């Protein structure tokens, strides 16, 4: 039995598990996350809940998390080099949880009227969405981490004893409670790791197949070793990362990864030199790590001092991902000094597998952009793509990436209602956008002032530089840097609306402003409304190149940047702008009435920085690449290009070169992140009709990949609409 057979069996089981999840949980418009279902008999009995089903504060979170860890079912697969799968998400177990609105123990109703007016996703109470530095954990192990926590607690206990009524008594008391909680969380993870080891041992006793038995024995040995000690071998390091990931997922869905090639390289080189690891072993272990959970890992790119980080490890990770054939969020960092062969191999895999990975980040624009916030080149080069759209400095930065959004289609709607000309509309938009940013910034301050009491980051604190040392939660002074993300959503809808008004109302006079307002108010009802809709919808679109809408997209970006970049919240936290909608296009669309670009009330808004489908008759990928590059805010956060390429182009003998050229061109123009689906349009259409026939079809929905059959019909429809069809020969 070789690794190929084991990989095939593991992938098949993953597909079966995905099917079970869909059957039991229904459609989930989210990342696959790697979780599996618990046994049906398993009952969650969290020890701390108040009468309303809520809990908050370090002590309560730690108690509940520890209960979950100490009771978490132990998943063991004899083919898998890694023990465990995660099954629960504690942060979603508070009663009344909604993805769009977090439970929050503190009242911010004074902000809510304006937040609702502009349909702002506030980020208040949102967790994770910044990156850990795995090196901290790999160097200390759980035993080292718990010692570090205890040392801090001792220090704060000393302070409490010395100054029981000092000005900092509350802070000191919190630090002690936080360290108690951290200790409890770690002990919970250690207990689960120990139980996983025992479960692997037990399973080995009854396993007949010698290869599997040996694997189970090795798994048990690995887990026993890393219960306390720091990992020393490659396999131990991989298992340690997986344990942290699963525990952190169980705590609050954290899915940030890291620079995986550099994290694993020292273990790889050491084990290879010692003759205890082959490349095939390493590839299989990484395969198991990627299968375990689709965290956002990077490979390649520049080191802090500007050298290319590509190593043999980068290729092993890429090859493991190629064999995975499942949901995966691996990013290749593309930059001037890179090993082009890594880039090429990434594109080849993208075209061969057609599973939406790897994706590609544009480090030149990202590094230069982040430096505009006043940071050094060394720091900027260390900032990596660790989520759907997000950038973060591992272990150093708190960001609320991808969870703070202003629906600019809603801002536009408010402005449009009180305008009677293009000039007054622009002025009103600017005014309302400014107000929207102000209330968003106040919401961020509110979050930063209270989140540590609501939901401390017990897991991510451990792998951050500061929280344990300072006795402060990462959301409340524990991190070294606070660069709070605010993303605009709905760019194309608003740019096309402004452009259509300029073209049809102002320039051509085909429709009067009053007629347009009346038609929009009636959702383009009646014959006249439909006539107006057609006229407006046929105007030049954002993305076509040289249209009024293109100019407006540029102007909207200038407005976004002017109000956010270089600014701070009232409490002094830096803000960074981006364009990104995540999977919220449908929800955002529902809150917005008809818009002057011909969009009807309630229809989804546009996706990220992408033009709307049909932006050009030829669907030109170069036009899309240039348009999206032109609206980059340019401060180190992304405005990703979500690209669907039809399989026809992928079949071209020069497809690899052409896709590389597209990505290169986009990045040279200032692009930051490219998420690509290579799709067989016919297959997608057939799967849209009957997803159960295509259980292994994986697509990149936005920043994340997911099994197509796990998406709701409305989300599948969005993927279908984005398809870019191959253009035939001109002659």
């Amino acid at each position: 039995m070789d690794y190929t057979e084991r990989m095939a069996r593991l992938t098949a089981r993953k597909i079966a598990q995905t099917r079970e999840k869909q059957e039991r949980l229904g459609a989930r418009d989210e990342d696959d996350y790697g979780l599996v279902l618990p046994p049906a008999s398993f009952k969650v009995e969290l020890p701390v809940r108040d009468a309303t089903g809520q809990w908050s504060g370090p002590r309560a979170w730690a108690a509940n998390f520890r209960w979950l860890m100490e009771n978490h079912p132990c998943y063991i697969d004899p083919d898998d080099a890694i023990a465990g799968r995660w099954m629960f998400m504690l942060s979603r177990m508070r009663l009344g949880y909604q993805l769009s609105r977090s439970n929050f123990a503190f009242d911010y109703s004074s902000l809510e009227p304006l937040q609702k007016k502009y349909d702002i996703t506030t980020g208040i109470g949102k967790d994770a969405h910044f990156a850990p530095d795995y090196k901290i954990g790999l160097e200390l192990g759980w035993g080292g981490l718990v010692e570090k926590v205890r040392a801090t607690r001792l220090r704060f206990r000393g302070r409490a004893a010395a100054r029981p009524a000092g000005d900092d008594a509350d802070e000191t008391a919190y630090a002690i409670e936080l360290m108690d909680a951290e200790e409890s969380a770690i002990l919970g993870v250690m207990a689960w790791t120990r139980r996983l080891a025992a479960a692997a041992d037990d399973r080995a006793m009854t396993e007949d197949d010698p290869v599997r038995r040996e694997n189970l024995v090795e798994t048990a040995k690995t887990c026993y070793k890393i219960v306390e000690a720091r990992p020393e071998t490659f396999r131990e390091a991989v298992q340690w990362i997986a344990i942290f990931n699963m525990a952190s997922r169980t705590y609050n869905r954290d899915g940030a990864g890291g620079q995986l090639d550099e994290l694993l390289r020292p273990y790889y080189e050491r084990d290879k030199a010692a003759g205890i690891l082959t490349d095939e072993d390493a590839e299989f272990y990484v395969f198991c790590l990627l299968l375990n959970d689709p965290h956002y890992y990077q490979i390649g790119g520049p080191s802090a001092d500007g050298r290319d980080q590509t190593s043999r490890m980068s290729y092993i990770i890429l090859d493991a991902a190629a064999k995975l054939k499942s949901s995966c969020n691996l990013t290749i960092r593309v930059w001037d000094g890179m090993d082009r062969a890594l880039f090429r191999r990434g594109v080849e895999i993208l075209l061969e597998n057609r599973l939406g990975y790897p994706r590609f980040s544009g480090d030149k624009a990202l590094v230069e952009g982040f430096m505009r916030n006043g940071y050094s080149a060394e720091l900027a080069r260390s900032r990596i793509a660790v989520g759907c759209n997000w950038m973060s400095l591992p272990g150093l930065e708190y960001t609320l990436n991808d969870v703070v959004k202003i629906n600019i289609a809603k801002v536009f709607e408010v402005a449009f209602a009180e305008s009677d000309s293009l000039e007054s509309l622009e002025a009103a938009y600017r005014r309302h956008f400014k107000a929207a940013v102000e209330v968003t910034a106040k919401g961020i301050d509110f979050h930063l002032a209270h989140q540590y009491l609501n939901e401390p980051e017990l897991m991510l604190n451990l792998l951050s530089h500061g929280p344990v040392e300072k006795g402060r939660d990462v959301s409340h002074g524990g991190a070294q840097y606070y660069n709070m993300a605010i993303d605009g959503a709905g760019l194309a809808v608003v740019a096309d609306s402004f452009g259509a008004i300029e073209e049809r109302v102002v320039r051509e006079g085909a429709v009067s402003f009053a007629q347009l307002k009346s038609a929009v108010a009636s959702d383009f009802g009646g014959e006249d409304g439909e006539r107006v809709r057609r006229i407006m919808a046929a105007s030049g679109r954002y993305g076509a190149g040289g249209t009024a809408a293109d100019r407006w997209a540029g102007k909207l970006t200038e407005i976004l940047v002017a109000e956010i970049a270089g600014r701070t919240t009232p409490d002094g936290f830096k803000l960074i702008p981006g364009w990104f909608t995540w999977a919220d296009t449908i929800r955002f669309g529902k809150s917005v009435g008809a818009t002057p670009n011909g969009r009807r009330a309630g229809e989804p808004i546009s996706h990220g920085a992408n033009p709307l489908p049909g932006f050009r008759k030829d669907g030109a990928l170069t036009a899309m690449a240039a348009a999206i590059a032109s609206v980059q805010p340019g401060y180190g956060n992304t405005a990703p290009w979500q690209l669907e390429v039809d399989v026809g182009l992928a079949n071209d003998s020069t497809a690899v070169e052409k896709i590389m050229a597209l990505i290169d061109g986009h990045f040279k123009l200032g692009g930051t992140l490219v998420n690509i689906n290579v799709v067989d349009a016919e297959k997608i259409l057939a799967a849209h009709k009957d997803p159960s026939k295509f259980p292994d079809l994986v697509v990149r929905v936005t920043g994340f990949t997911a099994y197509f059959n796990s998406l709701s019909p409305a989300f599948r429809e969005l993927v279908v609409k984005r398809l870019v069809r191959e253009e035939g020969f001109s002659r």
Partner: protein
Amino acid sequence: MRGVVFDIRRGVAKDGPGLRTSVFLKGCPLRCVWCHNPESQSPQIERAATTGEICGREMSVADVMEEVLRDRIFYESSSGGVTLTGGEPMMQADFTFALASSARSEGVHVALDTSGFAPWPAFEKMMSVVNLFLYDLKCMDAARHRELTGADNCTILDNLLRLDAAGAKTWLRFPLAPGLNDSPEDIAALRNFVAGLRNVEKTEICPYHPLGLEKYVKFGRKVLYDNPEYASAKDVARWEAALRGFA
């Protein structure tokens, strides 16, 4: 100088090397029975009979170049460029020459996609500004060529021989339609002719597709080859084998 253009497509992955912008010039002297761009045939701007859609617009060289240069960075990253196509771009030879000259002066690679049916002096002039000729060969038999396209192939073959002798770089393209120009004899004749050329860099088959059929109705043209089926993969494989000399 102004010309009549009926479409500009960006990001075209075919029609020459790399990523390209294809500029479609209106007007063609041939009437190929399988033509899938019937709206390109008349040199005049026209309105679709059924939808009222206008086909063609007058553009200056600067207008076209503004659009072409939008993708300059992708030409550089992919070794692509602009392809002047149609219709038959040589029907607007002066405008085509001006476009090609302008593109070359901007450092943009120029491909000319042509049927070859134009006076030699126009081609001779074009050689100084065109990097690559995408040259159609449809049928070697003069009489049948006339039946299928409305003109015989003497001028076409003569121009190709002259271009080749002058060292012009060429990609030959064979539009093949089942039952029309794809007999073993037809393909053997093409193969034999091509064997005598020295500067052909690449040959490619353009298999028949029916996507243009509905445009005949739209633009009030009579359908001359009413075949709703795509050329099959089997046909294409047979043609490719025959061109390599294995059939």
